[in-house]
């Protein structure tokens, strides 16, 4: 019973933004918000850290670059040098296209896999608060009821005062 959610269903991005701002000012514990598109600014109101994906992308890309450059150099210079028209085995400009392509491939795929793993997205995942329509046309702000914090009734009254069309109690997963 300690962790229960009170979800307010809003009709527009402006109202949910205002509600989240008010909740942050009032110091209410916010669980998450579910929206049909990314509502800019809502992440800040929820107090979310910026995504580290940029660094992830760079690392995967750098790994791809080093590995492919190294492999091409090793394969065409040391492991099996092929004499093609007397051209030098380690002609570095010729290694650029493949190295570039695989840098992009590693960065892209690595980043996507990191994202899926980080958010636990998989074919078996059950979407949270699906019935409230947060993916379609509603904007759902889920507040958390914590022991010692505001009661469910208070949270409910807060959300209603912010203009929520519906307020629903949900068991947290």
């Amino acid at each position, binding site marked *: 019973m300690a962790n229960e959610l009170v979800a307010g269903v809003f009709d527009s991005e402006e109202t949910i933004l205002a509600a989240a701002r008010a909740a942050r000012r009032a110091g209410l514990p916010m669980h998450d918000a579910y929206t*049909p598109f990314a509502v800019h600014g809502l992440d800040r109101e929820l107090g*979310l850290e910026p995504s580290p994906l940029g660094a992830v992308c760079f690392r995967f890309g750098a790994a791809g670059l080093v590995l492919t450059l190294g*492999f091409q150099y090793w*394969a065409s210079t040391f492991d099996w040098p092929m004499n093609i028209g007397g051209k030098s085995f380690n002609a570095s400009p*010729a290694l650029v296209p*493949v190295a570039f392509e695989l840098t992009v491939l590693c960065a892209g795929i690595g*980043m996507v896999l990191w994202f899926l793993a980080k958010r636990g997205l*998989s*074919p078996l995942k059950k979407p949270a608060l699906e019935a409230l329509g947060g*993916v379609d046309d509603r904007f759902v702000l889920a507040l958390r009821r914590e022991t010692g914090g505001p009661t469910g009734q208070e949270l409910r009254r807060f959300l209603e005062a912010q203009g929520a069309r519906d307020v629903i109690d949900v068991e947290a997963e």
Partner: protein
Amino acid sequence: MAHALSSLRRPLIGGDKSYSQVTEDICAPLGRRPTRAWYAALAVSVTALLIGAVAVTDQIWTGIGTWGLNKTVGWAFDITNFVFWVGIGHAGTLISAVLFLFRQRWRTSVNRSAEAMTIFAVMCAGVFPLIHMGRPWLAYWVLPYPNPMGPLWVNFRSPLLWDVFAISTYFTVSLVFWYMGLLPDLAVVARRAEGLRKRLFASLSLGWDGSQRTWLHYEKLYLLLAGLATPLVFSVHTIVSFDFATSVIPGWHSTIFPPYFVCGAIFSGFAMVMTLMIIARKVMAFEDYITLAHIDAMCKITLLTSLIVALAYGTEFFMAWYSGNPYERFAFLNRCFGPYRYFFMGMMLCNVAVPQLLWSRRVRTTPGAVFAVSLLINVGMWLERFVIITISLHRDYLTSSWTMYRPTYIEVCTLIGSFGLFLTLFLLFCRFLPMIAISEVKGVLHYARERAGAPHGQ
């Protein structure tokens, strides 16, 4: 409820729609029975696909001796089709990635289907080198995998190998980009669907629930993928052009090829996007989403790329003369006045002359006229690749080996088959997946519409 319109900007989406109405409009074709026109179109495309399948089977069974190639012209129809299809794909990435980075918000209505086109076009392109290998079941030999022959590695200094990596990376990244973009919309479709379809879409949407934590990473992911896809799309056609530019054939050996090919690719790709979009907006009743302003904007990009391509044609001729190289000069005189001159004239007409019509606003906002122009550009860009490839080869340094090339019916049937494959996949896509990015459209729904703070979606 009435929205005041901004005096500075025009709304991106026509009509005055609520969020649920957007979902309703875009998902409508998925729920109802397909129209007769859709079945007719599918019948034609599947027939074309089957013709191609028979032709490909024959080529693999008999060998590529079934083609019209000869000792002098060793590359012709097959690689023409390959370059043509790779080029078609470029507009999709340009719309989805480059326009995203430039914050061109009108792209949201067309990016989904343009990206789908990219994927289908690259699939069509991939078929041609596979057939040309003669033994496609050994296609994995192009990959550097540990093998018992030494191990014998591939030649990393060959542009043909660069092509392998460029095309497969391009295909993979485009597919991932497209699928990631689809995730929020698949969840919307799953919500509306029932039974097996609901389960299928729910698992395909990977449990998407619109959580703000997911959106936070997602937006960054999308931006970074766009940032990666942008240099990728330029690299792909650059590398395709290296297939020619690194050789010593007059008409091919040229440093202008990479930008020239990339621009031509975007030019032909936009023409194909417009060809399909103009039909789709009519048939699927998406006129409020793919508006005349969208067509107008795409026409402007087409016109710009047409001018760049025209400049490249001119530069090639100037350099042929200025270089003082007799072989180079001859190659270009032969291009204009040789036995294949009608191909050259057709190319100039379709790629340089016809697109000038797009200077007129009346033409740009008349879908029928734009459709006709875009079809001609498609033809013109196919001719361009044929002109560059075949005409440069058929009269080379040795007069004694001059010859003519004529495609056999098998090659023509393969080209027809590739159109069949492309259109079949596109029609299935229109039927089973949301053709317009629902979540992105919702994000720009209120663009340039002042809102009086009224609650929405009633």
